[in-house]
């Protein structure tokens, strides 16, 4: 059954108001299922042709949809992450590679680079694939970006504002600080990778690489220290 845009947005209004009945949940289910075929195409292409390993999420959860409708003035029909997937790669060079592969595999894509514009500290790259007027969002994260995001999401279970700049100020400060350290670390990591791919025989480049590697060690220690600080703060709050 094809749902009209008007009906989808009316459903969104009902969800936003919190007046949800069985028929609303069933309609929402129909709407989410309408992404199924396109979702399958995108995830299978990424798995089989690109040899990447996404975890697919064929439909955003009802609670996440309602929270997003409360948080933003967006209409339900405009939500671009109803269906999607997540890929976690080792480092920022692998992230760049994955973005390139996915961008080449589909005709109509847009990229939201949250490394350049972090959202309350959240850094990742989201590639949004459009097929038959359906949007499928693929999140591509490095291990460090993912660690930060999982940590932030877990803390947000207890204090939902944390992810969106409205939670405990101290935790937010620590998370944003940690995100900046990770960003700095990954930028250096990318420079080192670039240099390594160019040449390792040149003495000047070797010296530069050594200097970068020293910086990376310092930054990695800072990341671990910041993380431990947050855990220490967190344990006092008894967050699960």
């Amino acid at each position, binding site marked *: 059954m094809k749902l009209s845009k008007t009906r989808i947005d009316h459903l969104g209004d009902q969800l936003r108001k919190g007046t*949800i009945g*069985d028929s609303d*949940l*069933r309609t929402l*289910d129909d709407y989410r*299922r309408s992404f*199924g075929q396109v979702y399958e195409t995108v*995830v299978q292409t990424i*798995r089989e042709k690109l040899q990447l*390993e*996404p*975890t*697919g*999420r*064929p*439909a955003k*959860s*009802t*609670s*996440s949809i309602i929270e997003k409708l409360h948080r933003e003035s967006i209409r339900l029909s405009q939500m671009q992450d109803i269906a999607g997937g*997540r*890929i*976690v790669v080792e480092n920022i060079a692998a992230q760049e590679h994955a973005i390139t592969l996915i961008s080449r595999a589909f005709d109509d894509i847009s990229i939201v680079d949250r490394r350049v514009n972090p959202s309350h500290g959240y850094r990742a790259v989201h590639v949004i694939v459009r097929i038959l007027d359906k949007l499928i969002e693929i999140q591509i994260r490095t291990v460090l970006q*993912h*660690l930060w995001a*999982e*940590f932030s*999401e*877990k*803390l947000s*279970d*207890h204090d939902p504002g944390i992810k969106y700049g409205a939670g405990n100020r101290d935790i937010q400060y620590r998370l944003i600080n940690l995100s900046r350290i990770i960003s700095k670390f990954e930028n250096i990591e990318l420079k080192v990778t670039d240099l390594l791919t160019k040449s390792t025989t040149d003495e000047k480049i070797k010296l530069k690489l050594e200097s970068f590697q020293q910086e990376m060690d310092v930054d990695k220690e800072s990341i*671990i220290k910041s*993380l*431990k600080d*947050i*855990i220490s703060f*967190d*344990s006092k709050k008894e*967050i*699960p």
Partner: protein
Amino acid sequence: MIFLIEYNRLQGKIVKIERFDNLSRSRAEKIRLDIELDLSHKLINHEVVLLDAVSEKAVRRTHRRYFENVSQIAAL
């Protein structure tokens, strides 16, 4: 492999997890809807999500929040 997870955000714990093969997505979606209807009737606010991955190891890596507490996530 498909995973149907009912997650209690306040407690930070999985209430229920069911596993399905890749050909059973439609059945998993139906069960998800049944769980959501039941929770709605009981006024319980849990997150119900379907994930699909090549293995449970993969889903535990990309969606650690459902499976681990804060300290476990932070363990490097």
